[in-house]
Structures are given as structure tokens and as C-alpha cells.
């Protein structure tokens, strides 16, 4: 057991964890943030994607202890209170959510892309979601949502 101190969604958590514990298990079982999903536990599905140090990471493939020193953002940390992030808003509006199991990861993917690129091309959008499996939507509506969020964010920025 080691004491891990981790800032997750701006809140600092200190817990004793076994060295083998994944970040995913830490988030879900130790901190109780169950918004991040476990679709395979072995790096295949992408449903466990969270932001570590500003980058999307598969939390099932990362040891909790390895996240030490990095800010972690999960789906619970994306909205500001009741205000959805434009990507979240667009996902709702565009019907990009069916069963919703991939949704937290898709949001993280989209937010990260738009943080770094305010006018992504079709291929860039596809690329950013391609590591996450969605079995329900066929991805079309998720792509539409990310494009539409980009547009909204651009409008906001440029007045």
C-alpha cells in the first residue's frame, strides 16, 4: 500500500492504494466517480478515457500511482455546475447519446480536441473518437455534435 495524493476535478484526494491498482479502479472504487466506464479493463474499448495532465488516457491501462503529480479530469469534472460544456450540450442536442456507455469517453475525446483545435476537419474529428468504441450511434451523430460544439465555441470566442 502506498499513499496516493491525486487532484481529480480540482479536488485533492489522498488514499492508501495497492501498487497494482489501476487509475480506473481508483476513480470508480476509491473515489466513487462511476461516470468513467469499464467496458473491457484491457485497453480495447476506450470507455474508460479520462484526462490526465490534459491528455486523454485509458485509465484501465494506467496505474493509479503513475497519475501522481498530474491533474485528472473525469466526466464529472467537465460541466461547470449545471452548465454543460458545449461538447456535452451538442451531444444531447444531436442525439449522440443512446445507451450512453461510451458517452463519458466521447465527451472527454471531444473536449480535448476542441481545447487544442477550434476548427477540426472531418478526419480530425473521426481520429479523436476512433479509440473509443460506440456500438449504438454509428458515430455520425457524435461527429455532428463535435463539429457543432466547435462552431458554437468559435462563435463565442470571436463574438
Amino acid at each position, binding site marked *: 500500500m502506498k499513499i496516493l495524493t491525486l487532484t481529480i476535478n480540482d479536488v485533492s484526494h489522498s488514499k492508501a492504494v495497492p501498487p497494482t491498482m489501476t487509475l480506473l479502479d481508483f476513480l*470508480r472504487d476509491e473515489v*466513487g*466517480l*462511476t*461516470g*468513467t*466506464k*469499464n*467496458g*473491457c*479493463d*484491457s485497453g*480495447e*474499448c476506450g*470507455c474508460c478515457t479520462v484526462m490526465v495532465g490534459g491528455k486523454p488516457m485509458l485509465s484501465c491501462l494506467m496505474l493509479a500511482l503513475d497519475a501522481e503529480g498530474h491533474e485528472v479530469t*473525469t*466526466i*464529472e469534472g*467537465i*460541466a461547470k455546475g449545471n452548465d*454543460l460544456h458545449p461538447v*456535452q450540450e451538442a*451531444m*444531447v*442536442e*444531436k*442525439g449522440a*447519446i*443512446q*445507451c*450512453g*456507455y*461510451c*458517452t*463519458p469517453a466521447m*465527451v472527454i475525446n471531444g473536449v480535448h480536441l476542441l481545447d487544442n483545435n477550434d476548427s477540426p476537419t472531418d478526419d480530425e*474529428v*473521426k481520429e479523436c*473518437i*476512433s479509440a473509443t*468504441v*460506440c*456500438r*449504438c*450511434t*454509428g*458515430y*455520425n*451523430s*457524435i*461527429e455532428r455534435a463535435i463539429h457543432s460544439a466547435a462552431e458554437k465555441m468559435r462563435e463565442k470566442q470571436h463574438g
Partner: protein
Amino acid sequence: MVDLTKGYPDKGYKIIGKPVPLMDSRAKVMGQALYTDDIRLHNPLTIKILRSPHASANILSVDVSEALALKGVKGVLTGADFKNTFGVLTISKDEPALARDVVRYEGEPVAAVAAETAEIAARALDLIKVDYALTDGVFDSRKALKPTEHPLHPELGRKNNLHKKVVQEFGDMAQGFEAADVVVEKRFRFASINHAFTEPHATQVEIDNKGNITVYSATQVPHYLHMAMAEVLEIPEHRIRIIKPHLGGGFGGKSDPFPHEMIAAKFALDLGRNVKLKFSREEVFFSHHGRHQTDLTMKLGFSKDKGITALGLDTLIDGGAYGSFGIVTTYYNGVLLQGPYKVPNFRFHVERLYTNKPMCGAMRGHGGVNPRFASEVLLDMACAETGLDPAETRLKMIHKENTLTTNEYRVTSVGLRNGLTEAIRRTNWHDKHDKLPFGKGIGVACGFFISGSALPIHWNKLPASTVRITIDHDGGVTVFSGATDIGQGSDTMLAQMAAEVLGQPLENVKVISADTRTTPVDLGSYSSRVTFMAGNASRNAAIRMRRLLVQAACELMEMIPPKYDRPEPPEDFFRQGGRKPDFEKGFLGANPDYTDGFIFEDGLIRSEKHNASVTFLEAVEKALEQEGILQVSGTYRAPKMGGKFKGSGAGLSPSYSFTAFIVEVTVDPETGFIKVDKATCAHDCGFPLNPLAVNGQIEGCIHMGLGQALMEEMIYDNGATQNPSFLEYKIPSAFEQPEVDIVPTYSDDSEGPFGAKEAGEGILAPIIPAIANAVYDAVGIRLTQLPMRPDRVVAALEREQKGGAKA
């Protein structure tokens, strides 16, 4: 903004027909929606399952003593702990919760451990000693037909591994083929495929101090699970409460009661502790229940003027180790060919075999997908041979409204002709088909599907669906339904029904669903039954509620309440007399308008005639005076229908959906790689209740169809699953998904709720043959084996070049 209602008639509805985001979207997009594994019970034990490493073996002994002795282990179960077997169909309850004496597939549950932590449970599994004596397995449906002394299921008393055989014949096949201008015949083969939902199976069980259990489970069929569990655990149903939390995709893969659900409940009861269990992705593939591996030979007779003259098929489907929905699948492999075109002479022969592989069951498009591929490819060949245009030919052949199929299905609404006509126009079909450069192609295919099965799978006289609606003193409406939202949005659909009828904003309607303690029985989410059946039940309940409120409003306004010339729904909603539909008279339908001279809007109930009104709330208060609660129920049952022959109930549905796809592809002859560039879809789902949700179903079906067409296959080696992971079982990514164009297509179904029919499954089947037909248009090869892998394309092209285009 694209207007998703464009192209559909405006019927003056306020909520029906509008694109509304699914009502749980916000919770899902914020990570707040709780799926089964997200629930935190007090101090639960963790369950792990020991699975057989062999596909076929006798269990000589199971020694659990060391596992039980491990500190932290609270219990171990083996096959000896369960007396009753189970299955979703009453006629094939052949599956044990834990294997007893024999294992029939690799991955079959043999023992289970409940321990204080997951680590201890995992360690305990290693300590269980199972002594197996390997036996000869059967891994191929053809071999399963051969006589054997040791069939997988000796209880059937057969001398081979046949599970179910169905042969039906209508008309005169010989005459039908005689009347044909061309007869085409081919053998087709299909790999088994997996649902690949993203949420692995999970179950948690909570037990109270009286020994009653609440089962949280990722299931599409809470009601069937309830019944099966009571039987397996040998306790009354009232001691069990099944709740389906948010569900991460089903597609048919969570529509059976499962062994792990029985195991979890048994541990909770035996140990008096809360328990939890979740599958690894590998376990999902082991447990499978996917689309059957299929080997079918089909023969089609076609006449230039008359269309299809005869259709015959011989099919073997590989069921794997247990029954699941297999008997239904066996029928569906034949009967679902009775549309979208008239087939005057029709014969099918389908056999489902048991093999030592993970079982197959229901998967989106259940049983209809593979034969649809064959028939649509053969039809394309027939058109090519007779020089007819395959799109225009199909257009002419689509069922007319209000017809009876050869096997006596009652086809009522058909909206596909307009949709396909528009798809032909939009895609510039006539400029492209047979005219594109080598490597580019365009193809068409059609399909049809049931909107729920008219008959229940457990015979009973209860309604197929019942919905309860209550209104609180503050006017809040709650819809209680056993229907199972599996991500398709059925909760939203139920709320739309009530909101529209009661003139309430959607936010004022809450839905409580899929909880066997609080919600009335609905049979579950399978066979595309929910919109039609639970939707009608919700609408009927809302109409009853409306009448109570109108009554109360009239009392307040001192008016004589309207006389309804019809009794309350649903009693007279169908002409129940006789099985033969009277198309002349038409159907009263479950879709009567509820105009009563009152308008419910803006929080008011207004009499049109007297120009007087009371508030909705005043009426609610008045209506509450008598009983103190305001509650009604509404039901749906399918009208009597169907032929009088054995098996006539299979595929019988109160209505059918129709679909057409035109698909454009690029085929690289060097690599054999097929790229689907564009899919244009026309799907007649009656009147679309929520175009946003319908379009989502279309795009999702394209994804799944594309997967089966191009890349997905379960690979087995002597029964051993070779690709139990998403890395090895590839599903299409955003890069493979084509551009999608959805042609607004509709009909007004006289019995569907607000005219609606199914939109979740029928869409899937025709995209696959449309791709194959486009590949033919592109490079001149007929692919008869799925998936259409690049190596198969290259091999077929080589054969074609050598002159013998025999695929």
C-alpha cells in the same frame, strides 16, 4: 440547423413527431446515470465464475474444499446446487446455472465463488479442482446432423444434435419455378457475430432481513428474468424484485435470463449478503448469444412480369450449446422472407443444431438478416440476367397496402414505395448503376421486419403490455411501465405519448420503468415490440386519464360531460372478430383520435364549444377528490390474426416496417478492400415519433450491418473462441462508417401509436446485401460469404479473371 421534421406530414402534434433528445441524455452526458456496476450496495461480496477450459467434457468431480478454506471466501457454488434448468423460451429450458456432470462449451460456468474482495475470489477460483474427462465435441452444424450415441442434449431423446427443425411450404414450388423466366440458386455462408454492446453483463443483488432480494441487472427482459429466477431458486416471485438500471446496449444480447444472474441471487439468499458481479470482456464473448453461424442454400424463381415466382431455402443454423431463443430463430430464418415482396410459392427448411460452442440467440434483426442477404443477392442476379433494373424492379414488387402474404401475415401500412422512389432520385441511381468505372459501384436492397410479435413467448391471456399513469396533486404525471429502455429511448417514447395526449410539456412527465415491484408487466425489449406495444399501452392509459380530467373539468364548469361513442380504450380498439382481416372495412386500430371537444394546452383544459376553461391543476384536484389518488392503466394486446396451420404464429405481427438501402462503394481490386462511401436509407417506421431517435437507430443499424458485412466474425477452433476481445473482434470505427443520407419515409399505421411502427431492427438487414450488390456493380463478383473480407474479395476476383465466376 437541419430540420429533422422536414419531409414528414405536419399532423399538428406538439410533442409527437418532434426531434427530442432522449430524456436521460443529460444524466448520461454528465456521467451521472447509474449502470448496474455503478450501484454501490452496502458491503457486497464479489462473485467470480470458474469457466470450463474445454468445449466438451464430462465433469468427474469438483473439489471446492481448498477454495472454501481460503480466508475471505464466503461461499462456493457448483452445478449440484441448482436443480432446475432454465431458458427464455418455455419450450427449451435446457440451460443450467452451473454445469452439472457435463460441459458443453468452452467458457461454460462450472463453479462460482463469493468472497470479500475480488482478489480473494480470483485466488479461490484457482483453488477449485475440477476433474474433466474430455469427450468428442461437435463443432460444425453439418456434423451435428450425423447420428451419435452422445448428443449434447440427450433429454430430447434424439440420436443426433438437432435442436429444432421447421419445414413449411406454401403454394406449388414446381409450378412456381416453371413460371419463372430465370431461376438462380446459390449457397451462402455466414459467420456468427457478437452484439458487442459496450457495457459488459453485470448483476448486483441486495438482500433484506426477511430474505427478499432486489436484483439489479443489465437485462432487456426483467419480466422473463423474474419468472426464470423464481423457478431456478425455487422461491415465489414476490420475494424477488428485478430492477434494470441504465443499460449500456443490448441488441438482443441481454434478452435471455443468464446463469450469472441465478448465481448472484443464490449467493445472496444463501449467505444473506449483498453481492456483485461483472463480466470481463472475454466473458462477454464466451457467453455470446450472438447471431447464428448459418449455412444456407437458396433458390429463387423470377419472372420479368410477375416478380418472384418461387423461393425455396434449406438452412442450417449453428445454435451452439443451448437453446436460447433458437426455436424462434429457426422460424424467423424462413418466415421473415414473406416481405417486402409477394412470394407466391414458398418453401423453407431450417434446422438448428446444437454444437459445442457458445450459444447463439437473438441479435438485432433476429433470424431475418442472413436469409435477407441471400434473397436480395439472388434477386439482384435475377435482375442482371433478365436485364431489368434492380431498383425499379424492387419498387414494383413491394407489397401493396392491406394485403395478405402467402403465409397469411396481414400487411397493413406500407410507406416504402415513396421512400425508395426518392432514394433512387437522390442517388442519381440511373446515372450510376451499371455505368460507374471499374472499382466503383452502387447497389440496392430492401427488407421488412415485425413490430413486435403478436403472440407472447410464454402463452398467457394477459395484455402484451400494460402501462399505469398517475397524476400527483401538483399535476406531475408519472408513467409506470415494465418496458426496458436499453439505450434506444423507450422511456422518452412513453413520456411523449402521455405528454401529447395530456397536453403537458415533456418535462412534466416522469417515467419509472423496468422495475418488477412498481411497474406493470411488459414482456421486455426484443422483437422490436416496445414502441408498438408499450407505446400503445401508454397512449391508451393517457387517453383514459384524459377522460377522467375532462369529466372533472365539466363538473367544475357545470357542463354535461361529452358522451364517448366508444367505451374506454382499449376494449374496442380492435375488431376482434375472426382471424381474417377485413381490409375493406379497415381497422379501427389502436389509433383512434381522442378528440372530445376539449383542448389541453398551456396548463388549461378548454371546452371548444363553450369557450370556457379550467386549469389543468383545478381539474386534477377535482378528480382527486373521490379516491385521493389519480391513477389509470392502459393496455395493448394484438388483434387476433394469422393462419390456421402449425407454426402460423411465428413472425406474426400487428404491423411491419419496410426498409430500402442504396449503397455506394469503392472496391480496391488490388487489396480487396471494400469502402462503403455512402448509404442512403429509406425506412418506413410508420409515423416517426421522434425523428432524432429514428435517425439514431438508422445510423446505428448501418454501423452494425457494416460490421457484419465487412469484418465481424466469431472465430472458433474446435470450439475454442479465438478472438474474445475488441482487438481481435473488430467492429467498424468512425472511419469505416459511411456518409448517411436518410430519406424521410413514412406511412400512417392504423394501429401503431400515433401511426408508428418499429425502427430498431428491420433497418439492419438490407444494408448488407446492398453492399454486396454494390460490390458486384463495382467489380463484377458475387460474394456469398460473410464477412466480405479483403482476402475473399481478392480470391473471388481471381476466380472471376480465370473465367469461372463461381464464388
